[in-house]
């Protein structure tokens, strides 16, 4: 298990996730192998964004 301190970005993300969980009932994601913080459901996959970008229609 890695017990290193969180860096600023990780700390900010974790605080945001905890606040979202407490105030808006948002899920907090956990790494299934290490039980470490793995983000929130706010995060959007690359595939979702790229699919939208690649399907932008021609504009007139």
């Amino acid at each position, binding site marked *: 298990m890695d017990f290193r301190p969180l860096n600023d970005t990780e700390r900010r993300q974790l605080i945001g996730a905890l*606040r979202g969980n407490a105030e808006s009932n948002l899920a907090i994601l956990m790494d299934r192998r290490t039980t470490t913080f793995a983000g929130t459901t*706010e*995060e959007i996959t690359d595939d979702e*964004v790229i699919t939208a*970008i690649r399907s*932008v*229609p*021609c*504009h007139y």
Partner: protein
Amino acid sequence: MFQGLTGHARRLLRSMRRSLLGDGRAAGPTCLPHLPQPLKRLSRVVLTDEVDRTLFREYASHRMSARGAEEIGWVLLGIREGDHGLVLATLPAGAQRNAGVAHVEFNSSAQALGSRIVRQRDKRLTTLGVVHTHPGSLRHPSDGDFEGDSAWVSNLRGGEGIFGIGTADGPEGNGVLIGRQPQAHIQAFGRLLLSWYALAEGDRQYRPLNVELTLGPDLALGLHDVWRTVEAFAEPLERLCRQQAAVTFDIVPGSQGAAFAVCMKLAEPDTALRIIVESGEAAFYWQRGQEMFAIDVPAGPLDRSVYLALAELAEKA
């Protein structure tokens, strides 16, 4: 294969560190809003001041260029929450766009890679919509736009998109150039206008969308300086990103302005394969701690060269 440590490589490494520490453009932490709100129908679009400046500046610059009579555009990335979309990045149509006086089709390969690079910093960033220009005075999306957009919005969060229309039919100024907002959904800067609309799945027409400004960055602005390079290498780099999880990107100072840097961490601690792409050429480096070694790889598609370099490094490990 290894040509040895060079002063150039050391300078490059220092430059990359400076870039990673951030000059406010391409890298560095950004404090974005944390608390998501449930999605409602869009009632406004919020642009950061830098995004707005990018749109007006690049629109003006495009009109002065050799292809100035053509339509131009940008994909908008940002955060969709509550009743609004917060636009935080602009992805250019690109020099390889297909465009004419009455249409524009973006170079989506470069924009896809651009989205990966911008989203390294925040995975909440999503596609919010599109801005494109009209050559005349039609300050509203056309029927042809509606045909494509009405199907496309189903790909967006909330099933709704933000659409900006640029026109150059504003009144002549007579003094200091200052942005105005003649209507809640229209911004004016000199003769250039941006008119904002929303369209949701099932809508029969676009509706005007109030536009607001807030202080903030265009998270893709640093990329605009190297967009031709992004376009030139988009396909092989996109393939590489799909095949390898630990590919990261930076904008670093190059010998002729900004350069584009690709980093792949290697299995051994503190080692990485770094590729600096500048002026259509890629230079490969093996980084071990503070040291950088130039690597010679045969010319060819970038992703092929990466795998040849990795194979060579694996043989030496």
